[in-house]
């Protein structure tokens, strides 16, 4: 098997046994990029020089007989809304097209400190607003399984890169499903940790009460290693949880006997593709066969999650994106008459259509006269959605359902219908509203396109999710399937 196809934990074994060097792994990944990037288009910026220098450093330590960290020398791709000092961070927007951040995101710094190798910055929907990566100002990213289809979004580049072997692992961000849905569409593993589990410092904010950074990997073992690196308290993020996280690899145990799993019937309702449902039912059978106790349950407020989310996320976005005013960084029009003219035209020319639509919606629902009817109402409904989860997770160790109602759709299919596009996130959005951890893992194909199984856990109980996901993975072959490119 080619090096770029391997998992991080397999490559680590080979590095330690001196069967391969970090430089060779990096070279293999860049050769793979050379070979398939014109078909997939995962990246906005490649950082080959940085990567080669970081890999050489790891090789030097190996040659000196030093022990290396579990992910040292592993090529990683970053969604281009994570700040990297000295490397442009565009958010796939004209607004930040030339923005080179003066500081590095904490999660990224932790990857550097663990000696991962930075391959580049991946494509996304502008400011992470979208479900298909079609809203990028730069270019489309194509699904490695079928070039006519989207990779999902908004972390589409990060998911496509891992699926296509253009990186071994990656980071994305997830505000309403933006890690899990593309992971599902591309046949890889994606996880949104508990809100507060990973520092958001240096992740360009979209909706601050919902955003989380998380990894995309080829299997659950790599996921546990990535969480070990990026989780943890950060004084630079006031919403970062001050908790000691466990060693997540301790949960890589092939056993779910007696585990109680609830399947919300709303997650398998109308609107979910019948063949996707079949894959989920097979996964349920597998879990049962492996000794879990699986039962149908109900989350009665699920249908209200989508409208509540779109009011809350856009309200927060309208406030967060007020910072782009052309004053101290980012795009500014050249010939402004006065400062208000500069604000207006810099913002109007710097932002794309979907971003402007969401700023408009958020500004409207926060404006005088509409605040109670929309924003406050949505916050109250959020309480009810969270209560649904609290009650269900009192009874069950975790919840199970599809990650997305369908497999990857065709490029252009939904771009003119925001509501249909938003419905792609119907199974993932409630989780963000409740701040819970959730993982998407491959559970088979429909018409040669991957289907994702979503497991949702209790707050700060990533361990149980990993153990259930690991057990499912060890007893199935779905995660080994790779697209032919």
């Amino acid at each position, binding site marked *: 098997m080619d090096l770029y196809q391997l998992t991080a934990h397999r490559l680590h074994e080979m590095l330690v046994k001196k069967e391969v060097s970090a430089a060779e792994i990096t070279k293999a990944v860049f050769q793979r990029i050379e070979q398939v990037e014109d078909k997939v288009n995962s990246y906005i910026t490649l950082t080959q020089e940085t990567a080669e220098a970081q890999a050489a450093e790891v090789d030097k330590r190996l040659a000196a007989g030093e022990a290396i960290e579990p992910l040292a020398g592993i090529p990683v791709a970053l969604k281009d809304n994570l700040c990297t000092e000295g490397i442009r961070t565009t958010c796939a927007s004209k607004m930040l097209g030339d923005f080179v951040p*003066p500081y590095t995101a904490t999660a990224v710094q932790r990857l550097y400190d663990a000696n991962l190798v930075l391959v580049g910055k991946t494509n996304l929907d502008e400011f992470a607003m979208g479900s298909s990566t079609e809203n990028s100002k730069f270019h489309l990213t194509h699904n490695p399984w079928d070039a006519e289809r989207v990779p999902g979004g908004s972390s589409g580049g990060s998911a496509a890169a891992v699926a296509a072997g253009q990186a071994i692992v990656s980071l994305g961000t997830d505000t309403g499903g933006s890690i899990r849905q593309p992971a599902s569409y591309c046949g890889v593993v994606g996880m949104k940790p508990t809100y507060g589990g990973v520092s958001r410092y240096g992740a360009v904010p979209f909706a601050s009460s919902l955003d989380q950074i998380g990894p995309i990997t080829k299997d659950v073992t790599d996921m546990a290693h990535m969480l070990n690196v990026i989780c943890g308290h950060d004084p630079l993020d006031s919403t970062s949880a001050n908790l000691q996280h466990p060693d997540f690899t301790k949960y890589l145990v092939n056993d779910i006997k007696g585990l109680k799993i609830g399947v919300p019937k709303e997650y398998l309702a109308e609107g979910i593709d019948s063949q996707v449902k079949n894959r989920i039912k097979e996964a349920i059978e597998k879990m049962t066969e492996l000794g879990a106790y699986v039962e149908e349950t109900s989350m009665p407020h699920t249908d209200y999650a989508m409208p509540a989310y779109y009011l809350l996320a856009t309200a927060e976005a309208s406030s967060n994106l007020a910072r782009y005013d052309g*004053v101290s*960084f980012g795009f500014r029009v050249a010939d402004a008459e006065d400062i208000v003219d500069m604000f207006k035209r810099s913002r109007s020319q710097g932002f794309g259509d979907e971003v*402007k639509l969401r700023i408009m919606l958020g500004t409207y629902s926060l404006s005088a006269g509409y605040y109670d009817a929309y924003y406050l109402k*949505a916050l109250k409904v959020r*309480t009810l959605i969270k209560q649904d989860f609290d009650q269900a997770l009192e009874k069950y160790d975790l919840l199970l359902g599809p990650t997305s109602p369908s497999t990857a759709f065709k490029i252009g299919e939904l771009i003119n219908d925001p509501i249909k596009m938003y419905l792609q996130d119907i199974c993932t959005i409630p989780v963000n509203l409740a701040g819970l951890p959730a993982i998407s893992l491959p559970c088979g194909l429909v018409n040669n396109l991957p289907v994702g199984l979503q497991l949702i856990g209790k707050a700060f109980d990533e361990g149980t999710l990993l153990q259930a996901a690991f057990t499912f993975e060890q007893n199935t072959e779905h995660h080994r399937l790779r697209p032919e490119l």
Partner: protein
Amino acid sequence: MISKQDVDHVALLARLELTEEEKELYTQQLNKILNAAKALQEVDTDNIPPTAHVLPIQNVFREDRVGKSIDPEKALAIAPEREESFFKVPKIV
């Protein structure tokens, strides 16, 4: 129903300058989305407190000591326009 006048007003609040086409499009799309959001009115939320944030964090304090911050030169280096150690903008009044 959101009117084109509403869209004009919201654009002003958001400091956006929209073309006629954009105004048409956003009026249409905002009405569609707000119509879907009407579903929330079915939910009885009397006596339900709002959740703005899922974590039980009230406030985060630290010692009032000078820490490390970004070097002014680094911050000014990315400015669209600067003069000496200031960000430069077009006339305000």
